[in-house]
């Protein structure tokens, strides 16, 4: 071999070696049809903005069942993409042996609420149980945030659950990073006066908001503070949450709300137009007649182009309630469909609700929107099989036991949740102001979310502890009221980037189980015959191609 050949070998080797080491050709192409392994632009912006050190502990490790191996590999893929973009995020694997120790498992379960997930696998006649921790812990410099990787949907089978979780992975992960990275949390006020919901009932919703926002309670009737001061206090907040008020607002309070809106403050109203009360419903034997829940706000609502109908919505798509039948010892609990508790599929074309399944409303009333410049989006509407029961109406639980008259449910789509956005004009422009306001504004851009169910954001309570919002302890069903309300707050505060984090739909296709069932034997026979066919063809080919030249040589 001459020197030139040696030189060529060594030259090409060193060129490749340099190319490999110096990273100057890190060009990367994502060939998947849905660009599954590329980050969206909002995500990249979010990650590059992270300025403090964030550590991500992966608890999903050790000997994993196959479906979780997939979840883990998808997780690694995302984390790799993220760490490529920034140096402030560090990944840390938690040793699976550390987790197998019961003491450690108890420790993280107590401090962070991290629960293991059990996977059961049927292998012939024995059931195999594996414990996995599908969790991440994200730390910033001051706090730790436990993040569950598994979707919380109850009704899914194991593989479906993991597929669903893979689909939600980017969203879960980035929401976690977002929580840890957020610096200046926006302020949100929760109204305490005017007989709004008790804290205990709002606990779950507010706790999930607390990850992203600073929350404070707000009182119109705080002693010793002038109305001007009250207004200034309120104006520090971006969003005001008014959940289930049952006492009318005074003229001053209305003026403050009006001006808060015109100065850009956004409001979430969860109101019952009729004075319905779940307690009364369950406790009175013969039912009761709900009065009108007069908040003295009708003129303001009218100005902002909507009004409530004094009716209750009954819907054939409703949740069951559990009632006792029989007497004393022979009593049984059984679920009955209760048409006044509609289950609603939110508007799938709005960023707030396009990934949200059913939400649960109770004793809700229809909203009318009026013509005007404000932009009104229907987020929640009853089904096409609904009817309005006009005021006065006797509310009792006996309705639950009766078979509904299907023909009478012929009114369609009552609006029960709307988003009003645009330029809000003050009600007090040409009126006497209740008090002198320093910076009165005639109009301003704002947004209101109005839902005619005072209980929409209230969680149930068991043994004086709050249950998750949207969970019904009587029927053991879970509805997505919480995600809906949290998304609404993100939308109102302008945190659109969180909403769009979950936009990507993955197209991991499933196999058609029916086709497999039908053709299983055929597929298996075909697969086992491939090697034989290939070898046969190969043999014939070689006979033709190789034997002839040999003969010519011999001849």
């Amino acid at each position, binding site marked *: 071999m001459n020197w030139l050949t040696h030189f060529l070998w060594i030259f090409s080797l060193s060129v490749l070696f340099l190319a490999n080491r110096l990273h100057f050709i890190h060009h*990367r192409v994502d060939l998947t049809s849905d660009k599954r392994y590329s980050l969206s632009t909002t995500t990249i912006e979010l990650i590059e903005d992270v300025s403090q050190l964030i550590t991500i502990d992966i608890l999903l490790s050790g000997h994993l069942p196959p479906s979780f191996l997939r979840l883990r590999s998808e997780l690694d893929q995302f984390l790799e993409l993220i760490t490529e973009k920034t140096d402030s995020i560090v990944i840390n694997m938690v040793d699976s042996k550390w987790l197998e120790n019961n003491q450690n498992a108890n420790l993280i379960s107590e401090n962070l609420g991290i629960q293991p997930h059990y996977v059961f696998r049927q292998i012939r006649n024995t059931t195999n149980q594996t414990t996995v921790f599908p969790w991440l812990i994200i730390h910033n410099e001051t706090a730790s945030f436990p993040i569950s990787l598994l979707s919380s949907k109850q009704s899914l089978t194991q593989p479906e659950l993991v597929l669903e979780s893979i689909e939600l992975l980017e969203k879960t992960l980035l929401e976690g990073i977002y929580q840890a990275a957020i610096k200046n949390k926006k302020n949100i006020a929760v109204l305490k006066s005017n007989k709004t919901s008790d804290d205990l009932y709002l606990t779950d919703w507010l706790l999930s908001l607390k990850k992203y926002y600073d929350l404070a309670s707000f009182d119109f009737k705080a002693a010793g503070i002038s109305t001007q001061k009250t207004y200034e206090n309120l104006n520090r907040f971006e969003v005001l949450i008014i959940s289930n008020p049952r006492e009318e607002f005074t003229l001053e309070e209305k003026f403050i709300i009006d001006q808060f809106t015109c100065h850009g403050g956004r409001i979430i109203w969860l109101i019952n137009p009729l004075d319905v009360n779940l307690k009364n419903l369950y406790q009175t034997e013969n039912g009761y007649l709900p009065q009108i829940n007069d908040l003295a706000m009708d003129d303001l609502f009218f100005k902002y182009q909507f009004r409530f109908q004094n009716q209750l919505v009954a819907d054939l798509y409703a949740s069951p309630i559990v009632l006792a039948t029989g007497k004393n010892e022979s009593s049984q609990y059984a679920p009955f469909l209760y048409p006044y508790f509609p289950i609603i599929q939110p508007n799938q074309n709005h960023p707030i609700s396009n990934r949200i399944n059913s939400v649960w409303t109770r004793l809700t009333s229809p909203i009318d929107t009026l013509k005007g410049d404000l932009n009104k989006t229907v987020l929640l509407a009853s089904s096409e099989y609904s009817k309005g029961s006009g005021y006065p109406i006797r509310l009792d639980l006996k309705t639950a036991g009766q078979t509904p008259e299907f023909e009478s449910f012929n009114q369609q789509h009552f609006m029960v949740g709307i988003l009003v956005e645009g330029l809000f004009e003050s009600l007090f422009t040409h009126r006497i102001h209740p008090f002198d306001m320093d910076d009165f504004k005639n109009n301003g851009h704002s947004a209101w979310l109005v839902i005619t169910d005072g209980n929409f954001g209230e969680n149930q309570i068991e043994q004086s502890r709050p249950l998750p919002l949207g969970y019904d302890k009587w029927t053991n069903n879970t509805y997505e009221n919480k995600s809906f309300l949290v998304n609404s707050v993100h939308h109102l505060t302008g945190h659109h980037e969180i909403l769009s984090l979950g936009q990507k739909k993955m197209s991991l296709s499933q*196999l058609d189980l029916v086709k497999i069932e039908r053709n299983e034997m055929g597929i298996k026979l075909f697969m*086992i015959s*491939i090697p034989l066919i290939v070898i046969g063809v*190969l043999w014939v080919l070689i006979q033709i191609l190789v034997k002839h030249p040999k003969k010519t040589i011999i001849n």
Partner: protein
Amino acid sequence: MHRTKIGYLIIGVYLIVNSLLFWIIENPYNILSTGIGDLRPFFELSPWLLALLIPAIGMKSFTDEIQNKTIEVLFSKPLSSSHLVLGKFFGLLLLICVSLIPLLIYFFTIQLLIVSNGSFELISHLSGLMGIFLIALVFSAITLCLSLLLKNSVLVLIIGLIICCFHYYGWFYLAELSSSTQWFNALKSFGIIDHYKGLSKGILNVSDIVYYLLNILLFLYLSTLFLERLKFQK
């Protein structure tokens, strides 16, 4: 011609093992029982099967020639060492093609079985197949190298299997033993698996391709050096 008979056998066994693993025997890698319409299990397991297949089909490349002294015939021809090595390499490449091309049938089978509103991602699967092909080329270069060093073809098979497995996964295992992240990343990047993960999912990275070319050329060059040494010993 006596060599091809064992060639049929090896390729046949490889294809049968593939069919059994991914379609017939009930195991976590069975594609029918995962219920998901892609070939992820196939891409996960294939490098291990190749670590067995390639040393098996390449074990006799030079050992037989040396044992039967036919290597002298080759030396006497006007061919340089590089040409001899490349010739053997392309011979192996042909056999690899013959064993991998039938696996394209898996793609079509999945395409037929997928739910009617789903779609099969052909392009990202082709990138996975390319990854497997590149790994096979690296393994053949390693096998050629070994068949020049070792006298016994069974030894080539066994040591080839060990080295291929190590080169595929061992670096990653070593990396996991290390404590600092720099060592972890450096050791990991020596291994094939680090450059195969992306390809198997449909992410085409130029630096990964460079890695494979570098490996192939490196082992082929070593082979020419070994052959050169053999020539001058005689």
